[in-house]
């Protein structure tokens, strides 16, 4: 594959992530913050997001395994997760967190457990997608090309 083909592949892939709702415009905000003075800003923030998210998921799993569940604590964790996923533009994760908070309020154990599974799933999917995105970018740079700006008109 030549650089041009790789670039087109990256653009199509990126667009699909927005169209399918995995990412929203906040991710574009992150990309726009990246410049020569900080060329790996997006990767750094996303990497922090991965670390932070996996810690939160561990804490959530633990909290929901307790005999007596502290729903306030569970809600606090989900609130954190909703915040960070929203800040990087991980739309589906954010939406799953919003639903989760609703069930925390109801103090519904079964629904909360289901929500946790949903949030985990969405998180691992978007993690996978973003890792693929970064891999495609690295390939292009490795081949001496530059990362094309994705223009979204929807």
């Amino acid at each position: 594959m030549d650089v041009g083909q790789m670039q087109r592949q990256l653009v199509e892939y990126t667009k699909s992530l927005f169209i399918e709702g995995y990412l929203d415009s906040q991710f574009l905000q992150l990309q726009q913050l990246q410049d020569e003075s900080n060329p790996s800003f997006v990767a750094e923030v996303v990497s922090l997001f991965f670390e932070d998210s996996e810690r939160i998921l561990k804490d959530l799993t633990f909290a929901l395994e307790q005999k007596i569940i502290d729903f306030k604590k569970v809600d606090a964790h989900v609130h954190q997760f909703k915040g960070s996923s929203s800040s990087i533009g991980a739309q589906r994760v954010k939406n799953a967190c919003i639903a989760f908070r609703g069930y925390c309020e109801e103090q519904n154990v079964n629904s909360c457990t289901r929500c946790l599974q949903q949030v985990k799933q969405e998180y691992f999917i978007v993690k996978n997608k973003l890792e693929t995105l970064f891999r495609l970018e690295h390939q292009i740079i490795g081949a001496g090309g530059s990362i094309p700006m994705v223009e979204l008109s929807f």
Partner: protein
Amino acid sequence: MASSSSSSSPNWVMENNGVMPHVLAVDDNLIDRKLVEKLLKNSSCKVTTAENGPRALELLGLASDEENTLKGTGSKVNMIITDYCMPGMTGYELLKKIKKSSIMKEVPVVIMSSENIPTRVNKCLEEGAQMFIQKPLKQSDVKKLTCQLMNCRG
């Protein structure tokens, strides 16, 4: 060193004499801290971050431990931007403490929140917050803020 505004001009407009404004950003979320820091730096601000209210008060010289302050390093803070929802001391409580202090009460405080709840917004504004911004933060929000702070138009 930044000079403070004269009593005739609104305290929102700091006459900086071309010196970079120094902003203290407070947020318990690691990703949000990194994001707000970059947004502020992109708007030509010097940034210090704190992960909670008590730490912010320490840095401002409002806690009992006077040695551990920014003022000690000669770096006057021109604006404080804080998250509303933080464990322990909320952004609202931090705002009140700042407005009660004789040394810091003129410094503009901006509150950020993911939840746009009218009663929350109103009580912050009533307590003297300069502005209430919705998260996730965008470059345009921060540019508007810092532009006002640096006394420029548009």
